[in-house]
């Protein structure tokens, strides 16, 4: 099975990268972009049946820094992956 972990900055945490991307989009002439937040997507290839709790543990211990980041886990079963 595969799982995707989305790591995003918590609300209210300044995101200088997102801000720079926003400026660059405006520089290219794109109008109507209110805000940009940049995050990370981490894909995990796991043995089948890996429990949600273990993946959450991976997120808390390494993949996300929960002082400043949130994470969301999306499981893709083998058939879809």
């Amino acid at each position: 099975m595969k799982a995707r972990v989305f790591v995003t900055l918590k609300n209210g945490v300044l995101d200088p990268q997102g801000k720079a991307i926003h400026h660059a989009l405006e520089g290219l002439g794109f109008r109507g972009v209110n805000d940009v937040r940049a995050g990370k997507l981490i894909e995990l290839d796991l043995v089948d049946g890996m429990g949600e709790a273990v993946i959450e543990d991976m997120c808390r211990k390494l993949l996300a820094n929960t002082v400043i980041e949130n994470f969301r886990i999306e499981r893709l079963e083998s058939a879809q992956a």
Partner: protein
Amino acid sequence: MKSAVIVFPGSNCDRDLAVALELVTGRKPAMVWHRETELPDGTEFVGVPGGFSYGDYLRSGAMAARSPVMHAVADAAGRGVPVIGICNGFQVLTEAGLLPGALMRNAALKFVCRDVPLRVENSQSLFTAGYNAGETISFPVAHHDGNYQADEATLDRLEGEGRVAFRYLDQCNGSARDIAGILNDGGNVLGLMPHPERVVEPAHGGTDGRRLFEGLLETVAA
């Protein structure tokens, strides 16, 4: 004073720190590779140096903080052994949970590399005994991720407990409340972005950093 300097793949200020420690203590520090699980017996001081451990992959300091040696560093810190984390070392200590908060990308997105004036906020700690409170000193900074952030409650606690050791007088990275260096609740762990080890000899252009190590040596010896 028997000191140890931790070396990660990508550390690049380990030698500078070792030279500064030898100069001040008269003793070569043990260079401890990150795969080690113990510090040398009788280690009285631990330095986590600057650099780009693991190429800053995932987050600055994130990989190094999970290295085997960091369990030994955390144990030593728990026993009251003084631990300093400089620049990437500060990032490693926050990632390891030995210091609160996090170091984020500089607010202006620029790598800053220059001398910055700092104010010594607390001269009572192990690391700042060589300074007077309120004194202005100058250390160089060289970092991309030095923007210190923590929630308001944590920042208030740090301020209230006198755990802000150094503050920028010339804001260079967007840090909350201009914080340049903080202490843990026991006062024996210091993390700071500026580099005291780079200003220990007159040829460096200044010796303000030397007093940090001298103050520490005196306090530890006492």
